[in-house]
């Protein structure tokens, strides 16, 4: 039981429990907090996978901005407890089994996908000593066009959110 393995199981357990809490908690604020827990544990998993920059971006953008937006919206709308109604027959006897089957199916196929992945269980895959630098070179040379397009996407989203959320006055 090496330390990385222990860390993986701890973070995986926290992530899975957080995802279950998102489903089972009734108040939206509590679901949001559980989702933040999932995101932070995923950031730790990214660190385990050697993706430091992605872990930092995950915390800054996902846990530090997107989820803050969710929580502010929940606070503004004063979203209260969800009503406790029973699942319909369709949901209980067809939906839930199908959902669980989808999960197990994905687990089965993805666990076999790793063997089909190309090469290199050797080095922890870094072209140079500085993975952030490599990512920067990729983003600004090979993937420059998509990078600029995402800036336009953000601009469009900004304008869209602004227009949609204004009150009609």
């Amino acid at each position, binding site marked *: 039981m090496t330390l990385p393995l222990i860390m993986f199981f701890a973070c995986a357990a926290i992530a899975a429990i957080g995802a279950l809490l998102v489903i089972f908690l009734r108040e939206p604020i509590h679901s949001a*907090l559980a989702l933040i827990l999932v995101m932070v544990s995923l950031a730790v998993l990214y660190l385990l996978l050697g993706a430091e920059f992605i872990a930092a971006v995950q915390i800054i953008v996902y846990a530090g901005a997107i989820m803050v937006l969710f929580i*502010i919206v929940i606070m503004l709308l004063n979203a209260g407890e969800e009503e406790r109604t029973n699942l319909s027959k369709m949901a209980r006897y067809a939906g839930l089994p199908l959902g669980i089957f989808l999960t197990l199916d994905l687990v089965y196929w993805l666990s076999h996908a790793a063997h089909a992945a190309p090469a290199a269980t050797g080095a922890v895959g870094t072209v140079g000593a500085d993975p952030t630098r490599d990512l920067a070179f990729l983003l600004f040379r090979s993937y420059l066009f998509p990078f600029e397009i995402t800036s336009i996407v953000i601009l469009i989203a900004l304008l869209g959110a602004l227009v949609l959320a204004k009150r009609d006055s």
Partner: protein
Amino acid sequence: MEFVAQHPILVVSIVKIVVLLFVLMTALAYLTWFERKVVARIQSRLGPLYVGAHGLLQPLADGLKFLFKEDLTPPASDKFVYILAPFLALSLALTTLALIPFGPATLTILGQSTNLGITNSSIGLLFVFAITSVGVYGVALAGWSSNSKYPLLGGLRASAQMVSYEVSLTLSVVGVVLLAGTLNLNDLIYAQSGRWFHYIPRWNVIPQIVGFICYFISAIAETNRVPFDLPEAETELVAGFHTEYSSFKFAMFFMAEYANMITVSCLATILFLGGWLSPLSSAWRWPLYLPGALLLIGGVALVYDTVILQRGIARIQLAVISSIALALGAICLIPSVMPIVQGPFWFLLKVVFLLFFYVWTRGTLPRFRYDQLMDFGWKFLLPVALANLVVTSFVVLVLNR
């Protein structure tokens, strides 16, 4: 004991963390004393005087007061989130200090050679900003869980303010990163070593003065301090997001705010003021004696104070403090300790200078209104930070041709 031998890095890290926490909590407490004294002097009064000599035991008295106050919980509040919020705020504020390098030297503790900082991550700067951005939750959740109008409004406004000023905070720092070419905090300090014209140290505050001003203003807004403290000011929103908190939980918010101040000042010294680099030329030998000499002079002044000026119990307290100062001064003059103390000494001096600035603005400036505050962040600071980034990258491009 084999545990120590088998996991030397872990044990050394734990020792460093414990020492740092102890030093930090003491520094926090005395930062409150420092603030009250300085703000009092700005307002033509004297500040804490009676609780111990020169009011030096005031933080202890405040701490005891917070512990013994009645701990109320609003009945309709969301218990879990209500208790979580101050813990979250304090723990995040303290975590950032794990990333800050306090000095260059390498020590040998328990046979393991370590640096004067808990970690040395290659993207330390990004992680500091990551932890700062998650710090918004302490405020937002505190406002929500109190289940009351004023905290909710205070919490919403404070979180919107913090998120807005985070953008200009991180953008004003990109110029520094461009000049140094790295995100590692230690390397950022090393990139500022050397001098222009043999006398002016190559600190980033000179080429990046716009970035520094932008960073400092954003930092004051980010930590919810005057003049940006509308969400927690007494005359505006009762006490904003921490209205419904009492005793120990309020103390945690209080400590979190001061810990944030210290963190942001530490970061500003690393990025702009050269971190632990000395402004004096390294060819001179006498700066090595400076920390010890200053502590000894301070100790002698305190002895004078004890013997001549104070009476009674204040005399005993000052006697203890002056003997501690003299002992530390003597330790700093031991030849093997001298080079190790040099780095943290200059770091501390610069951080205290910036904290003095913080307290000075608190005593001097009036408060911003909320819409003025948001306008200032988005319509002035953000364009200025962007312009700084563009000009810096242009200059770097031209100079590297």
